């Protein structure tokens, strides 16, 4: 490897770092002030690219020149800033006080909505923007050509950093932003108009996202996959840098840019895993990122199942068993497809219920529960494929692998709290996703593993349905028992007040770690059942959408109720199964449904019904 090549690769890394920083900087500012982790930030970035790629060529037709080009880029970024304002006024303003989980989900719903709207507005084809006038020709550096636009990009990062720094240090708006980042309630108490401050912050954040996207157009086409691919990296940058810290984001972007530029030389096939590994390592060593501060509000956001001494556990268990017994007669009525959907509903019910132990009881908002679902599925499939064991052995193997994985990751996760905890669980899931996706020799990569069919006695639809029913109900009852055991109440104590729980001698970390392991094992059983119901596994079982599914089910059913996740799983899965065939805009429908749930029914279906009943009493 000669010197000139290393220099070029460093420059490549710097250029990527700059664009990443510009985008992530917006994300971190928005988080600092509003405390919302904006999943839709990537969508704003994508919108910036699309708007610029459509707008700039038109402008260049009117008058060709660098001024027009850069004016077009700025105009696109401004337009995205205005979209950000719209989002703030219509959606975010209503959820500032909501628990983190609801905010994450609402912005994820926005991601889905924007994905479909972009295809509607800009058409299905990728749009390649024009090159920057005056910057077409490459520059020769050490005998190698470097696009001059890349050099401009490298400069753009520090320029944006300087401007943002000036804005934050030298203007009244900046002072307020910094004050709000430090203590939002104090700023409110001092009579600052929060509405204006928050709207302004969202404008700034969205503007930066749009700018990041618009600056991409001479390098890459605007396409519909941009949002999710940038948001994952932007998350890593903000978390590694410390949420809310602009210089931290800059440093993190530099590191990640270089890691990617040189990573593809050393490991051309495992590029995806490197960045998330970095994030996991940083969070383990420095729980609040490089420059982050511990969160002031701790536990105040927790939502969960109330500890109602009056609730009769025995009665609920009886009801659950009765329902299960009734469900056992389904094979007599439904056709094969109906049973398939029913099997999947049962599996997702167990999956969502295991998450309920973490979130509802333990107050640990996991954003990567798919990791354990996927570990269960892969554990079962790998056992069948490599050890040739039958289903009877593969199902426990899946459960054990997921439990072991959860124990391993959980040991690190429970050291954190709040949003950092959620991000570390996300990183864990993404690492596993990347491993499954890129370790082709073992996991089959994107193809996954096929031929994971049940043993012959359970191969009939009806038989497998009954098996799933038995195991899912057993799993749910076991988790239910755990929730109501002293162990579950200890978890609730730690959730509601960590300091008080610690003061009376509860080892909160160890309890949470155990809960994490148990929830992982429950999800693993669901995953293993899922693998055999489909006959195959592939990396999507580990993906972000799978985690979001579980969260949506929880939310839909009602996060403060015990039976919520079960109802949520049934309703969401049946809905999706019915909507997907009907319309290409199913992501739009699903996204709007999620947003509507967050805004209108934060208690979920079961929670709302319960509230009615209690009012009636």
């Amino acid at each position, binding site marked *: 490897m000669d010197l000139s090549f290393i220099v070029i690769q460093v420059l490549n890394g710097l250029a990527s770092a700059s664009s990443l920083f510009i985008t992530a900087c917006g994300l971190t500012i928005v988080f600092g002030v509003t405390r919302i982790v904006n999943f839709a930030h990537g969508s704003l970035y994508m919108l910036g690219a699309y708007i610029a790629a459509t707008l700039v060529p038109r402008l260049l037709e009117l008058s060709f020149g660098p001024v027009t080009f850069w004016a077009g880029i700025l105009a696109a970024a401004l337009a995205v800033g205005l979209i950000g304002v719209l989002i703030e006024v219509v959606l975010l303003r209503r959820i500032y006080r909501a628990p983190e989980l609801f905010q994450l989900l609402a912005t994820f719903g926005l991601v889905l909505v924007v994905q479909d709207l972009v295809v509607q507005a800009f058409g299905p084809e990728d749009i390649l923007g024009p090159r920057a006038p005056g910057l077409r020709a490459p520059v020769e550096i050490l005998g190698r050509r470097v696009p001059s636009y890349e050099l401009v990009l490298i400069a753009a990062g520090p320029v944006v950093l300087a401007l943002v720094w000036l804005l934050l240090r030298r203007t009244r708006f900046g002072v307020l932003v910094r004050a709000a980042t430090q203590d939002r309630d104090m700023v409110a108490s001092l009579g600052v108009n929060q509405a204006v401050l928050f709207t302004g912050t969202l404008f700034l954040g969205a503007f930066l996202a749009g700018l990041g996207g618009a600056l991409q157009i001479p390098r890459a086409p605007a396409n519909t996959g941009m949002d999710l691919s940038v948001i994952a990296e932007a998350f890593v940058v903000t978390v590694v840098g410390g949420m809310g810290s602009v210089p931290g984001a800059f440093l993190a972007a530099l590191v990640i840019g270089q890691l990617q530029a040189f990573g*593809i030389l050393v490991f051309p096939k495992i590029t995806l895993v490197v960045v998330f590994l970095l994030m996991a390592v940083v969070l383990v060593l420095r729980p609040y990122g490089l420059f982050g501060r511990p969160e002031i509000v701790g536990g105040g956001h927790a939502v969960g199942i109330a500890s109602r001494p009056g609730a009769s556990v025995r009665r609920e268990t009886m009801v659950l068993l009765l329902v299960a017994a009734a469900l056992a007669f389904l094979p007599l009525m439904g056709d094969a497809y109906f049973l398939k959907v029913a099997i*999947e509903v049962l599996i997702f019910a167990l999956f969502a219920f295991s998450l309920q132990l973490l979130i509802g009881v333990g107050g640990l908002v996991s954003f990567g529960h798919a990791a354990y679902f996927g570990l269960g599925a892969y554990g079962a499939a790998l056992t069948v494929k490599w050890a040739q064991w039958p289903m009877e052995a593969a199902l426990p193997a899946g459960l054990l692998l997921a439990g072991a994985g959860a124990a391993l990751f959980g040991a690190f996760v429970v050291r954190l709290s709040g949003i950092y905890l959620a991000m570390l669980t996300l990183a864990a899931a993404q690492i596993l996703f990347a491993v499954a996706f890129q370790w082709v020799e073992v996991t089959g990569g994107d193809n996954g593993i096929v031929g994971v069919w049940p043993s012959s006695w359970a191969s009939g639809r009806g038989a497998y349905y009954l098996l799933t029913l038995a195991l899912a109900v057993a799993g749910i009852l076991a988790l239910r028992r755990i929730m109501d055991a002293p162990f579950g109440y200890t978890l609730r104590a730690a959730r509601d007040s960590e300091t008080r729980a610690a003061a009376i001698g509860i080892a909160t970390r160890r309890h949470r770690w155990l809960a994490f392991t148990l929830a992982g094992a429950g999800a693993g059983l669901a995953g293993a059942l899922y693998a055999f119901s489909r006959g195959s596994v592939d990396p999507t079982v580990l993906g972000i959408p799978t985690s979001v599914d579980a969260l949506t089910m929880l939310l839909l059913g009602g996060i403060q109720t015990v039976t919520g996740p079960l109802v949520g799983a049934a309703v969401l899965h049946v809905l999706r199964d019915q909507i997907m065939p009907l319309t290409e805009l199913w992501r739009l429908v699903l996204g709007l449904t999620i947003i509507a749930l967050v805004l209108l029914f934060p208690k979920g279906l079961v929670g709302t019904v319960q509230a009615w009943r209690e009012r009636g009493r």
Partner: protein
Amino acid sequence: MVLAPLSRRLALGLAVVMGLGAAAGPSLAQQPPIRIGELNSYSRWAAFTVPYRNGWQLALDEVNAKGVLGGRKIEIVSRDDGATTGDATRVAEELVTRENVSFLFGSFLSNVGVAMADYANQKKILYIAAEPLTDAVTMGQGNRYTFRVRPNNLMQVGMLVEQAKASGAKRWAIVAPNYEYGQSAAEVFKRLLKEKIPGAEVVAEQYPALGKIEAGATVSAIDQARPDGIFNVLFGADLTGFVREGNTRGLFEKKTVLSLLTGEPEWLLPLKDEVPEGWTVTGYPWDEIKDPKHKAFVDAYRAKFNDTPRLGSLLGYMIVHMIRDTIERAGSVDTEAMIKALEDAKFDTVIGPVTMRGLDNQATMGAWVGKLVLKGAAGGMRDWTYLDGAAFMHPEAEVKAARKD
């Protein structure tokens, strides 16, 4: 959009829950229509699949003007396959058990194609792969229920390597998306290179994740290896980013570049005037094919959709006409009768005769091979020839060794 007839329960539930009114009843024909299931990645890979759907809709209209089996209409129930194996097999199951379709066709990504082939085998239902190109669909994962119309990776790469012989390039770099299609194409290329060009070696390999290329770094990593030939399997947004960086950095100068699919309008049009001239590609020069039958197809397509056809359009069009012929010959849509009618069947298609080889259920449809050239503001192909697929297919012994049936 073809709205499937909805079961009443479903329509009712949706109208209540989502506030969507939906009403579409089955057309009242004298005889019940033949129902065929179709699934593809309409939202995730719209650039290819939307023109593809236009293509099969055009063909469907033509077929239904006359009807099949004495006037019966064909009805295609179309679904989004979600671009993942899990969604695709669930949607397939829904089509088969709920919509009572007689057989299935479609899908885009190779990994989804492999999963669909496994599904077809498991459920003993006919599946005609539309776009998945990996050899596995007709080789390792092949089975008697799975057929493919498009030329597979070995055939297309074979055509390109044939062209590369003359170039004299010996040091090759490979860049391919890291999933089934890219891996399979890269593997085939390495094999053919060894067989056909003595002394050639692969000096660099880059496998960016699909849709996530770091174009600048990838280009300079390839450049660093100083290859004199590049084999490219990228498509979509990855390709566009790669080409632009490569152009600026002079990666392609004085090098032989072989590129799969890049001449197809769906991937070529987004490149606009950045078209890398001189690349040897497989593609579809739709505007230069003079055959009157093909011209009639292009005219009808343009008239109906006010757009130019892509390769996907041609494929969708061809598949539905081949399905019509097969149903006529089989005399019913019974799976076994259809399989019998498909094996070694000859079709007179809009691009000439195509045979469905019974050995591996792979059609002999060929590809247009030529060099990329900039024509005005967009790319096209020059010096192209249509190479029939028959000469490039897997040898018989290899098929027998690979296939389990």
